[in-house]
């Protein structure tokens, strides 16, 4: 049962053949060559495969390829601004929020979805927004600081002394 689907990826229209065993994550990585989105747990438990669908972060490993017909999705590659870094990427780099980098695309997209919806998140909003993205390296603090630094609410992250 190979079927053709049409979807919009990072603003571009794509037509893809999909077999039933493929998830949307497989299509993104294998058919479209967009390997920024990572394949890790495969069960929706880590968030490394996070993409944005209708403005909302979702686990692409849990969406069947065939379900993607007619959808509009954003992957991490959409944040490319010429040769420079997107403000969220820049904040992550400046705050030391990237170590191995494997969780980073998913983290950044969860952050983007949050900031697009709520430009003034406080620390609790940020921690909830990234609560579906696991990081084994950083302990999350730098990631939280990076995202808060972009909050128009000028919220300072909680420190150990509080």
């Amino acid at each position, binding site marked *: 049962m190979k079927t053709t689907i049409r979807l919009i990826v990072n603003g571009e229209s794509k037509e893809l053949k999909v077999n039933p065993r493929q998830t949307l994550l497989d299509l993104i990585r294998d058919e479209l060559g967009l390997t920024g989105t990572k394949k890790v747990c495969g069960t929706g438990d880590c*968030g490394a495969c996070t993409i944005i669908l209708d403005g*909302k972060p979702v686990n692409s490993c*849990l969406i069947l390829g065939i379900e993607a017909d007619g959808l509009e999705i954003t992957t991490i590659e959409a944040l490319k601004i010429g040769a420079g870094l997107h403000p969220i990427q820049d904040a992550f780099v400046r705050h030391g929020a990237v170590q191995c980098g494997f969780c980073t695309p998913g983290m950044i997209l969860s952050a983007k979805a949050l900031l697009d919806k709520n430009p003034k998140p406080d620390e609790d909003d940020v921690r909830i927004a990234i609560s579906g993205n696991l990081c084994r390296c950083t302990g999350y603090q730098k990631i939280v600081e990076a995202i808060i630094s972009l909050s128009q609410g000028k919220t300072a992250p909680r420190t150990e002394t509080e």
Partner: protein
Amino acid sequence: MKAYEYFAPSSLSEALGLLEHCKDEAKLLAGGTDLVVQMKQHILEPAFLIDLKKIKDLKRIDYKAGQDLCLGALATASEIHDSNEVKAHFPAISEAAGVIGSPQIRNRATIGGNICRSAPSGDLPPILIALAASLNIVGPKGERSLLLEDFFAGPGKTYLNPDEILVKVEVAYPGGRWGAAYLRYSLRETLDLAMAGVAVFLAINPKTNLCENVRIALASVAPTPMRAREAERLLLGQKLSEELTWKAASAASEEAKPISDVYGEAWYKKDIVKVLVRRAVTESMLRCN
């Protein structure tokens, strides 16, 4: 995953027609946050998938003052959590929807899927049971309704027939002074199942100040969501005090039948039930207005 035939009907009657032909080998697909995992793990290998997401009517969240809250089976946990009407009139339902999985999961997982999956640890069933929710189901012979509480047959099993589709969940707005709460305890704050979940609904008679109605439903401590009827009996008709609340909490803890597993020892889970029942009863009382 095993290969399957995929259909995305755009109406309920189309979906029912498809189901009629392949009901024994078909699975209904909503958010997929559970089904796709089970397919990947070869726990379920449906030959046919019927995707319900194009049936827009199934997503509606409707509330009319003085009438029922209607949650369409395909409403997502995020939509229920964020709904201003649910937050305003049934905050405990909004809160329960907000603890499921993670933001990514909540953006796809549906109330219909959460109910029909019949996981003992499901977060929506207990609060809905405490609020006496009923289900609206359609099949080839037409519509039927039943109490959510009577829907669960066992872990992973419900009384939904293979040729039926859950359409919506209805919650009547309780009369009088009432309050409800859902509290759960899990090892991680997120992306975890409830080790124990407690939902409480209670109503206080404004003249006598006595508890005139109470329902307590527990998650994760039995094969299906269960009512803590002994605890309820202790509270019904009484003036609620700290002491009585602890007595009821102890009774609920006794009634709970958790198993020992990776989430915790049975004795510990029972202790958690006791603490959560006390907190949820207290919170529900505070919410009575």
